[in-house]
């Protein structure tokens, strides 16, 4: 997951950058600030080892600007009305999406959990979210098996929906039983504060990001 030569940001930094991007999405900064923030985030993405993604995001931004200023005003009504709200929304949320994608790709789940714990998120919430995230790949696996079985049984059309849903739910129920047994017999209900072998520390890179973010947010607010 993490290449040794790249920058590695703390999950808490990621969350703070996310919050700031959200604020900027509402404040609507002037164009130079908006562009500056996006370039900064793409730079961060590239430094964290996702160079290709950084380039793609910049292209997407360029594409949205073209859409908004050249293509859509000249398009037939249906397309223009359909796409302009979407284009506007995507442009605002672009910085959030950049940070979000960076977190998904470069933050291991165990670090995120420890990060949330240091911020005193309720332990019960952390447990439930961990289980949800851990179950996504299992859903994909189960769906694969069920679809294979459906092919062998020659199940068609609308029947497929019912045929997929029922075994999936039943499997979810039995997994919940078995996983709970395995978790409680390893002490998950222990009220003592949980510890971790993972140690999180904010380093210079993290602080740089946070300070930059605060500066951008303040500047946007003051110039709005």
């Amino acid at each position, binding site marked *: 997951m993490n290449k040794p030569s790249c920058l590695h940001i703390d999950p808490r930094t990621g*969350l703070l950058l*996310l*919050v700031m*991007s*959200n604020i900027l*999405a*509402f404040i*609507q900064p002037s164009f130079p600030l908006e562009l500056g923030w996006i370039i900064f985030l793409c730079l961060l993405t590239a430094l964290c080892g996702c160079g290709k993604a950084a380039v793609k995001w910049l292209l997407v931004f360029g594409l949205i600007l073209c859409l*908004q200023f050249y293509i*859509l*005003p000249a398009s037939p*009504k249906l397309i*223009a*009305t*359909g796409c*302009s*709200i*979407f284009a*506007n*929304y995507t442009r*605002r*949320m672009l*910085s*959030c*999406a*950049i940070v*979000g994608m960076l*977190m*998904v790709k470069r933050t291991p789940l165990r670090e995120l959990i420890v990060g949330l714990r240091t911020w005193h998120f309720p332990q*019960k*919430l952390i*447990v*439930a*979210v*961990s*289980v*949800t*995230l*851990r*179950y*996504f790949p299992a*859903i994909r696996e189960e769906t694969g098996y069920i679809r294979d079985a459906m092919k062998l049984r020659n199940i068609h059309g609308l029947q497929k929906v*019912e045929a997929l*849903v*029922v075994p*999936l*739910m*039943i499997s*979810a*129920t*039995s*997994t*919940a*039983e078995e*996983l*709970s047994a395995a*978790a*409680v017999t390893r002490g*998950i*209900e222990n009220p003592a504060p949980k510890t971790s072998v993972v140690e999180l520390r904010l380093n210079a890179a993290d602080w740089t990001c946070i300070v930059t973010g605060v500066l951008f947010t303040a500047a946007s607010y003051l110039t709005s």
Partner: protein
Amino acid sequence: MSSNRLSRGLNGKDLITVGIFSAVYFVINFAFMLLSALHPILWILMPGFIAVFSGIPFLLMCTKVQKPGGVLLMGVITGLIYFVTGMFTVIILVTFVIACALAELSRAMMKYASFKGNLAAFVMFSLGMTGSPLPIWLTRDSFFAQISSQGMPESYIETLKAISSPTMLIVLFAAPVIGAFIGAYIAKGMFKKHFIKAGIV
């Protein structure tokens, strides 16, 4: 000696059950969210579509976790995932928390084991997703300032104003209510046909 320990708080098994069914709910939710990106009208109706198809995991969770907190947890998990991946603004967390608080109230009032109580809870819960298209109304003015500066023709602006009108705001909130009724009854049918017979509830 019989052991029937119903502690009021969510224990380990409850948390894991909620977590797993939240994952299933999220997958269904996400699939319809993607589909609705095609047109703003679809986006406004999206919470309604999701409600029609997501009754099953919600009601299964309700049947298995007959305690306060399950619904709130499911809503917060969904909102958190959407927020942290940068797909939606923090507004979705706000709407989910409000919707889930109302849902928990319905369940508490109907004592957790009744279908009507869970149906009411599902209606409230489904309103949580309205936080996704809600920014259309919240940022209306700056949106119109921006698109006229882009050189959009007047007639287009009129249509867009219609989409973000107060009437559509009512549609935004009405769709999940209707959708949730449909979704809950579909789920009830599935319960009768399969889940109760199979013995998992």
